[in-house]
């Protein structure tokens, strides 16, 4: 009974989670406050872990459970905690600046989603996995996170954009090639990279604090 239900609703649930992932990517794009941005990022990590666990249950790939557990620990617990600490240290809870205004960003976002869906449609035809429809969404959330990185002038939202991009990549990996044990390896490796990057930015920001409290405007001036 349980197995039959899972086989029936599993793929649909994965599609639903994929859609929620895209929704969260859009919410991050339009969010002005850093604090909410971090919460949205944690929510995205949770959705990602859930969908990975679901793919694992559907396909019986045991290593994906591990991958889901790592995702949960890292992206729902550890990274948001680090980010919360970071913004408390830097005292930048209320940053609001975007380079382009938000409605325009959303319009560009829609264009990116259409582009991603068009690009992914022929590739998804080739993939034989239950989650292949998720590829377009994964690509779209990668592009949206990229857009967020471009349109934010402050360092912390850019880091979150980068992490969200990695979320999209991870989802693309589980959606297209869940048969490969490399996914776990790749995911963990990327996550380590991400953690290293955060620490790098952390140190960078601290160093910058010795010069001034303002984070991004001054950094641009420093370039000369």
């Amino acid at each position, binding site marked *: 009974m349980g197995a039959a239900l899972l086989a029936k*609703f599993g793929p*649909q*649930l994965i*599609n*639903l989670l*994929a*859609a*929620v992932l*895209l*929704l969260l990517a*859009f919410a991050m794009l*339009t969010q002005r406050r850093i604090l909410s941005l971090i919460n949205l990022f944690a929510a995205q990590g949770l959705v990602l872990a859930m969908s990975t666990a679901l793919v694992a249950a559907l396909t019986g790939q045991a290593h994906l459970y591990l991958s889901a557990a790592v995702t949960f620990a890292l992206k729902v617990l550890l990274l948001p905690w680090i980010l919360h600490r970071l913004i408390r240290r830097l005292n930048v809870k209320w940053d609001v600046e975007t380079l382009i205004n*938000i*409605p325009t960003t*959303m*319009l560009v*976002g*829609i264009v990116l*989603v*259409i582009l991603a*869906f068009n690009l*992914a*449609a022929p590739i998804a035809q080739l993939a034989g996995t239950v989650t292949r*429809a998720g590829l*377009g*969404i994964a690509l779209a959330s990668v592009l949206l996170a990229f857009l967020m990185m471009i349109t934010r002038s402050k360092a912390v939202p850019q880091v979150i954009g980068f992490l969200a991009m990695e979320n999209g990549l991870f989802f693309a990996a589980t959606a297209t090639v869940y048969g490969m044990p490399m996914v776990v390896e790749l995911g963990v490796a990327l996550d380590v990279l991400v953690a290293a990057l955060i620490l790098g930015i952390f140190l960078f920001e601290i160093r910058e604090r010795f010069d001034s409290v303002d984070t991004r405007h001054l950094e641009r001036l420093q370039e000369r």
Partner: protein
Amino acid sequence: MSAAGLAAQFTELMLALLLAPLLTGWVNQCRAWLQNRSGPGLLQPYRVLGKLFQKDVMLAHNASPLFRAAPYLIFGCLALAAAVVPTLGTDLPLNAAADAIALVGLLALARLFISLAGMDVGTAFGSLGARREMLVGFLAEPALLMVLFTASLISHSTSLATIVDTLAHREFVIYPSLAFAGVAFTMVSLAENARIPVDNPATHLELTMIHEAMVLEYSGRHLAMIEWAASLKLFVYSCIGLALFFPFGIAQGGDWLGLVLALPALVAELAVGGAALALIEALSAKMRIFRAPEYLGTAFLLAVLALLVHVMLEA
């Protein structure tokens, strides 16, 4: 058309007319509880309507016939809209009168009349409110249409009864696009019903009001009709939301037992929906009027995303 259909249609219309003030009262009561107030009680909207119907009508000297006709026209539009949305059964004789697109048109017609009436007397508040109402309306309408188009794409029909039949009575399928459409619809209906992120229904004589500014010049039975129509609008939007996103319990065709069971299901769903609305209102702050385009733009984009997701994941 069957006897059950006729009965469903009649009961549905009567129910909408009678229950609409109760829904408003319930939302106000929930909001009062959430704000730690005791609240005016569930029946307050009926008492207000009763009081207003007994009072005399005061008209401005330069009020045109349009000003006097508008309350009845608005009420008529919304009563027809309430009759078209399936709440109890899907076999409705009036269903052929208006599909989802015509329903949006009916709501737009009501908005047009209330805006014209707001400008009619020529007071500053009236035209200010009317212009803001049109601003909100022209941004909210495309988003509402997109939400309805998403549901229409799923069921291959713009007829609301067919949409409900498809969503409620076929094999249960999860539609991710409806999640997007649901968020968009919630945002649109908050804006359209003059609820808190866009307008504050409890405010009077403030520079921020939209709906109340338009109806300031009305009194007596005219005001009663408009208040009743506003309640009906909230009821219609709630029922559209239930029909699209929680259509469970709505009877199929001329199923008598289903019709009888649909009534408690509808009341329970409306009670939960009203409480949720009060919760949203209690948790959010009213935004500046110039933020409204951004808010409604988000709703529109979410609705477009719903269409895209439908094409990508479900087609």
